């Protein structure tokens, strides 16, 4: 305990000290001056009463010292000590006090003694006070330090508890990688004791499945280039078992920023990892058969094409079960599923031993992938293996299900194709196998493939072609046989395909009908052709040709056809009498057919109808009675085949002649198609055929060519 702090308070209880004499004795300073001196120093902070008491007390002591014959140093020293006690510790104050003490009669030895005693008392007290205060503040600092250390120990204890009982594994290592400490959870992850881990090196814990870059990142961390790293990392346990962890490794630096330790925190995520693996397996495998699925197959196939060896070859067997639909429909889906699983098992056990991958693409389609194929024979052998595997009936629930398959085989150099093209080619080859009869394999044929592919290219491209304006219309003349004049033109749609060049209707109308694109395409053709015909009428009046436009079966079945044509005629302004629609014999099924009503409406509107390709279909002539047709077009094959002389030719002409008279009997006009020379034209004219169409009368051509024909025929006539 230090000295109690000096009080500068008014003392209300203690008796007042004796008043100093009014006149100062020699060497004793004037009370006023003394008070001024003290007030200029520490006295400024004191209560005036307290200061007053201090002044009184010290001057009294100085008087007392003076009063004895031989100067008593005691009271003078006490006066000095009293000032120190009141916190008058400024050396400057002492100097000025001594100055005052000497002020009386300078040079008097007794005064020097008084001043000396006062100074000694002041200094002694200050020394004592300083030592005590230093001791006190040191003691306080020590106490504070102990307190801080205790808090630090508590904090350490908290951290230790955190370290020991944490649910995640924590380990501490130096930057050289020596493991220094591990907690309980870390021991559990590795299933070893702390001693077995401590002393090992972090860098020894390599695993072949470590993510790429994990060790580079580790090196960057321990060298101070990054503060922490975080990875999913596998480790070996003592017994060789693998534990997957989520690892976060952080760097600890000292006060200067130098890396000193690393702290690893890891969580056992083995279960999560296994679940992920299972999900990945599920994503890549067909749940019914357990075979790799479509996406797994494509992944593998693409891997084959990813930087192959020069000259590498591969093979694909596209397998489709024959008659699976029958099983499914008659015995139920459950049975169908069991059959698929059984088939998968047979394929797998027959082909996997050969090193081939078997995958299920969906439905009853399977594929065999031959990587590093040695040649066509090997692929064909695989296809034969597939067929052999499925040759025996599959027993399911007491049934013996005979299931065959068709196989499309493709075997090619990797460099010659792409994964997508290969799969498409194998698929097309499979369909050829199907078409050629079931239970067989068919080998990829590049030429047939090219044709199939073009069909494929057509159907894929067509939907956008209309929007991009790739279609256009040519017009072929139909001429009157009696005077050779231009009677009509037939609108023929063309497609300027960006890869395949200009395609005729034969090459894409079938596909258009299959895909439904015939509807917008047909409407477009009518709009264009009617607009063109109306334009000619406007320009050339009666000299303008009539217009023939083909109607596809599907268009006829469309409920909106009549309204469409009505709208088109009105918007283009074409006289309905100038439009003839060509339909095929097969277009109308019978008198109850809806399309018959549509045709009648069109005829009512003023449009005329012609039967196209007459004589080639299943000609049930009865329909001619019901249909409101005005014209027949004899199929081109009847005339163009009449090349050779002889019996067949004679017979041919008789048929044509019969068709012409049949038409006339029914009150219909007749147009012969496929007329290629003057001789034929003359014979047709002589037998009364009304009009003819064919190369002799003009090939399909651009509208400008038709305009020329109109102008020529006019000038000829004039």
């Amino acid at each position, binding site marked *: 305990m230090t000295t109690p*702090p000096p009080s500068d308070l*008014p003392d209300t209880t203690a008796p007042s000290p004796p008043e100093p004499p009014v006149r100062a004795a020699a060497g004793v300073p004037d009370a006023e001056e003394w008070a001024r001196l003290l007030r200029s120093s*520490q006295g400024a902070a004191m209560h005036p009463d307290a200061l007053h008491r201090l002044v009184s007390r010290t001057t009294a002591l100085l008087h007392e010292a003076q009063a004895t014959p031989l100067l008593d140093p005691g009271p003078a020293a006490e006066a000095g000590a009293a000032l120190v006690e009141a916190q008058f510790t400024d050396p400057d104050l002492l100097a000025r006090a001594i100055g005052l003490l000497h002020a009386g009669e300078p040079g008097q030895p007794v005064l020097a003694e008084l001043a000396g005693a006062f100074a000694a008392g002041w200094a002694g007290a200050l020394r004592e006070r300083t030592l005590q*205060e230093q001791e*006190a*503040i040191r003691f*306080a600092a020590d106490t504070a330090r102990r307190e*801080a250390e205790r808090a*630090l120990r508590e904090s350490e204890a908290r951290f230790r508890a955190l370290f020991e009982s944490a649910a995640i594994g924590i380990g501490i290592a130096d930057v050289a990688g020596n493991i220094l400490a591990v907690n309980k959870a870390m021991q559990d992850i590795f299933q070893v004791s702390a001693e077995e881990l401590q002393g090992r090196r972090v860098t020894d814990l390599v695993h072949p499945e470590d993510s790429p870059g994990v060790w580079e990142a580790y090196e960057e961390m321990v060298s101070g280039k990054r503060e922490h790293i975080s990875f999913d990392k596998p480790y070996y346990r003592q017994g060789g078992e693998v534990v997957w962890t989520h690892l976060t490794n952080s760097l600890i630096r000292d006060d200067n920023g130098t890396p000193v330790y690393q702290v690893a925190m890891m969580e056992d995520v083995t279960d999560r990892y296994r679940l992920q693996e299972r999900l990945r397996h599920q994503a890549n495998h067909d749940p019914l058969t357990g075979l790799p699925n479509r996406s797994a197959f494509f992944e593998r196939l693409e891997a084959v094409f990813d930087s192959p060896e020069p000259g590498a070859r591969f093979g694909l067997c596209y397998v489709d079960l024959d008659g699976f639909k029958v099983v499914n429909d008659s015995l139920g889906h459950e049975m169908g599923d069991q059959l698929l699983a059984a088939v998968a098992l047979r394929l797998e056990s027959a082909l996997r031993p050969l090193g081939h991958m078997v995958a299920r693409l969906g439905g009853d389609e399977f594929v065999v992938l031959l990587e590093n194929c040695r040649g066509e024979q090997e692929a064909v052998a695989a296809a034969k293996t597939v067929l052999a595997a499925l040759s025996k009936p599959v027993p399911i629930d007491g049934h013996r299900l005979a299931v065959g398959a068709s196989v499309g085989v493709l075997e090619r150099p990797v460099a010659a194709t792409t994964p997508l093209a290969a799969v498409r080619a194998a698929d097309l080859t499979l369909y050829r196998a199907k078409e050629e009869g079931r239970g067989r394999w068919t080998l990829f044929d590049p030429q047939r493939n090219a044709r199939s592919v073009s069909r494929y290219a057509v159907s894929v491209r067509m939907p956008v072609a209309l929007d991009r304006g790739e279609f256009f219309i040519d017009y072929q003349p139909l001429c009157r046989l009696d005077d050779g004049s231009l009677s009509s033109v037939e609108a023929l749609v063309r497609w300027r395909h960006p890869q395949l060049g200009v395609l005729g209707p034969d090459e894409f109308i079938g596909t258009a009908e299959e895909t439904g694109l015939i509807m917008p395409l047909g409407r477009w053709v009518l709009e264009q052709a009617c607009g063109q015909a109306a334009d000619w009428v406007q320009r050339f009046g009666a000299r303008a040709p009539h217009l023939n436009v083909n109607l596809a079966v599907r268009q006829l079945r469309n409920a909106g056809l009549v309204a469409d044509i009505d709208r088109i005629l009105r918007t283009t302004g074409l006289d309905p009498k100038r439009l003839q629609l060509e339909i095929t014999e097969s277009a109308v099924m019978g008198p109850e057919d809806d399309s018959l009503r549509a045709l009648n409406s069109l005829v009512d509107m003023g449009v005329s109808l012609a039967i196209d390709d007459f004589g080639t279909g299943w000609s049930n002539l009865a329909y001619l009675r019901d249909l409101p047709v005005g014209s027949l077009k004899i199929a081109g094959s009847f005339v163009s085949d009449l090349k050779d002389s002889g019996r067949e030719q004679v017979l041919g002409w008789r048929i044509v002649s019969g068709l012409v008279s049949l038409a006339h009997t029914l009150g219909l006009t007749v147009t012969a198609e496929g007329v290629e020379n003057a001789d034929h034209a003359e014979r047709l004219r002589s037998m009364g055929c009304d009009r003819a169409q064919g190369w002799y009368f003009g090939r399909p051509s651009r509208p400008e060519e038709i305009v020329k024909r109109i102008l020529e025929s006019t000038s000829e006539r004039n």
Partner: protein
Amino acid sequence: MRRPSWVPEGMDLDRPAAARVYDYYLGGSHNFAADREMAREAIEMWPDLPLIMRANRAFLRRAVTYLAERGFTRFLDIGSGIPTFGAVHEVARAFRPDSRVVYVDNDPVAVAHSRLLLEDDELSTVVDADLTDPADLLARPEVADLLAPGEPVALLLIAVLHFVTDEQDPEGIVRTLRDALPAGSALALCHASLEGRPDQTETHQALYSRTPTPMTMRSVERISGFFDGFRLVEPGLVYLPQWRPDEPAEVSENPERMVGVVGVGLLP
């Protein structure tokens, strides 16, 4: 329960601390070499500093006396430092011997020293808390007990708010403390002003950047804002020597030289 700090601050006696530097200004020896070195440097540049500190100490005495005379017996002295000379409990008890004082400081050495000094004083306690975390400060049992409703409390913020930076929101801190005071409580405040000695502001603040508590001197206008909600007693907000001097004659000619702006306010 107090939230444990992660790792407690260490003790660094090589770094000056405001409380010990203040002790040196007042002629004490409760300080270490680093404190003295900084204090001497400061005095060399600004010789008035010891005078200012004495004036500050005298204001504390006069303010506590004024409050004790008005019947205050509960004092909360925040930033008490090393109260060797004219400590609050001594001043107050000259008038009200039953005065209770809670001393608060965040300097561990000052706190340890005060505890040593007040070991045997049953009516005084020392709390190691930080003004910049007023919620924590108010939650200490000793403080909460002192502020229990019933009797007004004299809150003393003597030369401490200028050790709170603007980022630490001194106005918000004072508001929080004010709202926790019982009705009729008082605030006695001393704050270093910018206007007193603008020539010294920058160098002096720079010196205190060595301590854990950098110094922010503020304008008189901002200082007056700390009394929001209080009614200032006569003579209002003034420089140190002007506040109810013991003897009116002793007020020097240039009171602004003492820099400290002071006032005492009362809550309704």
